[in-house]
């Protein structure tokens, strides 16, 4: 016969482990966001060009694909995630410079808006404890299509397509935030470094898309 005490103890153990992953993820996420804010500031001060930003982004994404998965289960994953987020923050330099010169209010609105959306969606996933794992296929297809549309627009240069891509990115990244938070709560994600990387990328893409959308619709 099953012992109910053992079952309760296992449930508590699993809950404690989930809470630990969640706590560590949010702690590391806030530190990496602060760090990339600092490197973003350096990128703005240095007047980093779009070429330099592209190189920083390529190095960061290569590290994300090839280095982070090999180091995420050890302490070596921490400097790697800081290096990735630092480089991605630095890569924001030219776009921040562009909008700061245009209207600094756009940057602060996009920053605040991103914060509100992230906290709202995370809060929704945490309080409802819904399982959003069913969204995985939909989100990946959406992301793939958006990458294709962005690629196409490099050749077409259509402002309307660029706006549509930004709007869809906001929705897809919102979906990724719900999906990732629910994966942490429901035990689908047990590595806080990988969870941080995923949430960080969603926040970064959300911020960039919101910034471009607000910039396009502003009166300046």
């Amino acid at each position: 016969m099953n012992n109910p005490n053992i079952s309760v103890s296992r449930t508590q153990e699993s809950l404690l482990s989930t809470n630990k992953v969640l706590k560590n993820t949010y702690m590391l996420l806030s530190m990496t966001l602060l760090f990339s804010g600092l490197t973003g500031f350096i990128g703005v001060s240095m007047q980093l060009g779009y070429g330099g930003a592209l190189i920083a982004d390529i190095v960061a994404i290569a590290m994300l694909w090839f280095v982070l998965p090999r180091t995420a289960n050890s302490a070596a994953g921490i400097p790697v995630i800081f290096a990735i987020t630092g480089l991605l923050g630095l890569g924001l330099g030219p776009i921040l410079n562009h909008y700061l010169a245009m209207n600094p209010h756009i940057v602060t609105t996009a920053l605040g808006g991103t914060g509100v959306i992230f906290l709202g969606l995370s809060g929704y996933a945490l309080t409802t404890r819904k399982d959003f794992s069913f969204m995985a296929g939909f989100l990946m297809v959406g992301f793939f299509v958006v990458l294709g549309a962005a690629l196409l627009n490099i050749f077409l240069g259509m402002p309307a397509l660029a706006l549509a891509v930004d709007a869809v990115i906001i929705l897809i990244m919102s979906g990724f935030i719900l999906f990732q938070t629910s994966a942490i709560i429901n035990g689908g994600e047990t590595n806080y470094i990988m969870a941080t990387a995923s949430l960080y990328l969603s926040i970064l893409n959300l911020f960039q898309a919101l910034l471009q959308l607000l910039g396009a619709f502003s009166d300046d």
Partner: protein
Amino acid sequence: MDWLEIGSALFLVAMMVFVFPRMRQALKYAPKGTSQDWIGLLVPILAVIGFVILLIMMV
């Protein structure tokens, strides 16, 4: 077309190549959502759309 556009295009192609197998895997193995699940998703997504419209009106 300058080297920056070529670099960006190559970067996007590399991302698509990297994402494609993950997309196939997700489509194959991810659980399917019920209509109730999708309705539950509508609430936060509509809230995000409304909030973004509000931000656009503010700038």
